[in-house]
């Protein structure tokens, strides 16, 4: 029988997609996903005063609206395996198995990108560091973040040092409610949030997110109505975070979904199995919508 590359490709694609569809998506609630097919994603933010007053009739330009932009450059990821035709002929499962392995590795790669981005937030330079009132040296999750407007000269924190608990989640919700943009306008966020925790806090996060009773006084809890999802990131450890579900400043630019490419090798002796994806993590120019707790 002739070596049938089309049949191998069909088997590989089915195994790849089947495996990918069953892989973990615990990272999903942590980020807002953009799928724009562009080498660099530009995310604008308006940090104007925001409130209505007397009509001024002043014209606006795109530069006024997107006052600052994060430019996130996408990153290509790929991996290649090779099987010889002899190996394919001798095994009923080699093609499916190698395709499943590639799907699992692609899924793990996406998870790894999100984990690296989220756990790095207390170390990531704030995009507006030293600009628009945000102090020098300020990180994306930090204390003492300046804002202007009515409260000009004062600061706010989106970085806590409290171990995960129901009261800690309530503290984060309170911060989101009161949070201001860099112009000092209160944004009233936190109606719907996503929790991001590590394995240490996974059980408790789901209990808090699902239980209609507060544990201390058995009073009704509003948290289940406000928690849209729980994201479990293995490398979070005892860190945890809250992100606003609608105004999440954390972004995954998933430019190209994971896919498998099957081609004959140049020497004609076998088949190349390549998995590719294009994705990167990014943040909006403003940290509004994030509360992070770095305990230790």
């Amino acid at each position: 029988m002739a070596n049938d590359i089309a049949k191998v490709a069909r088997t590989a694609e089915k195994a790849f997609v089947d495996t990918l569809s069953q892989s973990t998506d615990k990272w999903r609630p942590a980020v807002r996903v953009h799928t724009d097919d562009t080498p660099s994603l530009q995310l604008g933010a308006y940090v104007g005063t925001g409130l209505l007053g007397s009509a001024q009739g002043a014209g606006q330009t795109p530069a006024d609206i997107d006052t600052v932009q994060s430019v996130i450059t996408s990153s290509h990821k790929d991996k290649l395996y090779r099987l010889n035709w002899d190996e394919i002929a001798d095994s009923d499962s080699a093609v499916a198995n190698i395709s499943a392995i590639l799907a699992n590795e692609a899924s793990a790669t996406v998870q790894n990108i999100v984990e690296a981005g989220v756990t790095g937030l207390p170390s990531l330079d704030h995009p507006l560091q030293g600009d628009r009132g945000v102090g020098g040296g300020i990180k994306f999750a930090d204390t003492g973040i300046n804002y202007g407007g009515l409260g000009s000269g004062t600061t706010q924190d989106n970085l806590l040092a409290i171990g995960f608990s129901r009261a800690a989640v309530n503290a984060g919700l309170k911060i989101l409610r009161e949070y201001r943009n860099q112009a000092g306008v209160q944004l009233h966020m936190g109606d719907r949030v996503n929790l991001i925790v590590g394995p240490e806090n996974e059980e408790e996060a789901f209990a808090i997110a699902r239980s209609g009773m507060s544990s201390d006084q058995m009073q009704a809890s509003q948290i289940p109505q406000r928690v849209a999802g729980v994201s479990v990131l293995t490398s979070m450890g005892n860190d945890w975070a809250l992100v606003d579900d609608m105004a999440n400043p954390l972004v995954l630019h998933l430019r190209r979904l994971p896919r498998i490419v099957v081609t004959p090798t140049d020497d004609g002796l076998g088949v190349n199995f390549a998995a590719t994806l294009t994705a990167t993590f990014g943040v909006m120019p403003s940290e509004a919508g994030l509360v992070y707790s770095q305990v230790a």
Partner: protein
Amino acid sequence: MSTTKTKTDPVETARQRALASLSRQSVTPGKVLGGDYKQYRYAVIDLDAGAGKATGLRAELELRGYTRVEPTPEVVGINRPEVWSIPRAVFDEVLQPARQSRDADRMRAAGINILIRRTA
């Protein structure tokens, strides 16, 4: 009666504090009341989160050089806190740079690259 005010005038001090409090939001949850934030970095364990969780956190804090603050001060938003501290200099010059180095390595390995474009 003299109307000359000095820097230590208690009325003036109170007035300045009151004005400052009006222009800011409520106190950040997790703040250790009476804490010396210039000298120390504080970590808070919520004992209502369960004994197992407290044990794990204590072990991690001890490992990083934190010591327990006793008697336990009050903490905004936490009914039953346990407070640990580490000298600010140790946190800022040893722990945080180590974490930042680790985080930067992870982000670099993951291909994370964020540029900022300011248009106005």
